[in-house]
């Protein structure tokens, strides 16, 4: 990593070129061939930015909102519901946080197994973006300064004083490929897994995935500006469960789920196409989040990293029938993302059908949209103010 570089660019120089409409921007998919044909040094000279994208369920997501005070008397809203989905009200008077996986209060959960989890926090977020009104209900316990005890009102997105998408953990760098070696069908957050390893479910958008294109977080940190849910967002640090020191391939790609991002952005600028409430049979509700991170090609090393292809990415195969729920840290070897995309993999003796969870078409659409934004000069790069540790 410390060899002297033949190409050296700064983010400021790249932003100058973006503003003048001169920046050369490729999607992570296009960059694979560019690096192969030109080599990393020429590619680093030619290309300024590589855009990535992913669209996947990301459970650690939510909405931090301020509902504004109602007609007097004022309220300290300590219990809050949006469309009957409980939000956390243990903040200042009219602030609350709605988590993506919170089911609506009367959901039968898994009492009738497998539960359907039709509506939850993620669906509230999607409804707001679709222009629908949501019903807000709040209870206060009454204080001298906040005497009101109840409040009920319908809110459209614009009626909130602020509505900030605030996701504690997104964009996992690598993820397990889930199989089930038990002899009964199970329902997991990775989808249904048939007995005796009959299907293998996997997430991530492979070579398009943000954190496979900058495996050591050289350019991504607090202050990196991103595509988030169809609008503008920011990386605000490492996500929860960030693992800075994973085992890696020779290329530096982690061999287990490792790096993560914490992100935020103004929901009012986002689109329902890229933030979808989802229901996982037998598991729960969540939110599918569209994220695209632009990677500045500062030198030939960044060109090399962003030239990553699906064949380079090794995904661990993990048993969710026994090992995962029991916390057994074991895997059944690795398969490449290219193998997973081919529709079938070999696990031990048997051939297993592969099932994706991440939308490849939307992931690519996000990388392409971000590319257009940058080419048109409307989106410049944010410079990381604090780096995320990864080695």
């Amino acid at each position: 990593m410390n060899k002297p570089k033949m190409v050296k660019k700064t983010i400021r120089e790249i932003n100058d070129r973006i503003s003048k409409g001169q920046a050369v921007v490729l999607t992570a998919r296009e960059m694979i061939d560019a690096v192969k044909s030109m080599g990393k040094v020429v590619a680093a000279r030619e290309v300024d930015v590589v855009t990535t994208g992913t669209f996947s369920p990301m459970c650690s997501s939510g909405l931090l909102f301020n509902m504004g005070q109602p007609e007097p008397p004022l309220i300290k809203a300590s219990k809050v519901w949006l469309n009957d989905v409980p939000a956390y009200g243990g903040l200042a008077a009219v602030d609350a946080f709605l988590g993506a996986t919170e089911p609506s209060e009367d959901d039968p959960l898994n009492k009738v197994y497998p539960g359907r989890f039709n509506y939850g926090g993620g669906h509230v977020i999607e409804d707001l973006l679709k222009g629908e009104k949501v019903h807000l209900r709040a209870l206060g316990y009454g204080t001298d300064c906040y005497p009101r005890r109840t409040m009920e009102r319908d809110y459209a997105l614009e009626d909130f004083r602020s509505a900030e998408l605030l996701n504690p953990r997104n964009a996992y760098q690598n993820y397990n490929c889930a199989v089930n070696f038990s002899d009964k069908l199970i329902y997991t957050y990775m989808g249904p897994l048939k007995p005796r390893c009959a299907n293998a479910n996997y997430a991530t958008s492979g070579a398009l995935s943000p954190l496979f294109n900058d495996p050591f977080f050289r350019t991504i940190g607090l202050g990196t500006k991103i595509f988030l849910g169809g609008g503008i967002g920011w990386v605000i640090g490492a996500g929860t469960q960030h693992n800075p020191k994973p085992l890696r391939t020779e290329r530096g790609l982690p061999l287990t789920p490792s790096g993560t991002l914490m992100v935020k952005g103004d929901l009012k600028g986002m689109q329902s196409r890229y933030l979808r409430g989802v229901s996982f049979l037998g598991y729960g509700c969540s939110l599918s989040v569209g994220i695209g991170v632009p990677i500045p090609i500062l030198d030939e090393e960044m060109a090399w990293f962003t030239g990553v292809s699906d064949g380079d990415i090794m995904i661990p195969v993990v048993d969710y029938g026994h090992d995962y729920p029991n916390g057994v840290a074991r895997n059944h070897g690795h398969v490449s993302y290219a193998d997973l995309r081919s529709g079938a993999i070999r696990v031990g003796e048997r051939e297993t059908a592969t099932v994706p969870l991440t939308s490849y078409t939307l992931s690519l659409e996000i990388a392409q949209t971000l590319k257009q934004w940058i080419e048109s000069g409307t989106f410049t790069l944010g410079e990381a103010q604090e780096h995320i540790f990864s080695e």
Partner: protein
Amino acid sequence: MSKTKETLCLTFPPEVSGQPVVCNLVRINDLDFNILKARISPKQEGQMTLEIIGDRKQCRAGMRYLKELGVKITPVAQKIQRIEDSCVHCGLCTALCPTKALRMDLNSREVLFLREKCSACGLCTSLCPVRAMVLETENGIWEAIAEGA
């Protein structure tokens, strides 16, 4: 005697909605049954997707019984629809689709829905995380969100 299984889409007129039709149906004709979906519309019309299991003669007698009561029967085939705008082409539905009517196109990375292969088993309607697969009847689309059995 070998048993057959019929899957039926039933529409109950308001006047029979309140009666224990299914209960009588299976008792009189000695059938086993499975309610796959049921709901009563705001107009008080009942809709149900019902599986009946029994020998062929009993099944037919059961269907006659329903018709006599004024219950409309539509065969279930070709009743599953995909809301194209809603599908995100993730591919999760391909995990359980027994007929491979839902399959990933390996080149375009889009999920194809081959309607002619669909047996209307209904698995995908509860599996699709964005509820893009729905059961469609003459009265419009049944939201998968309407409670299952």
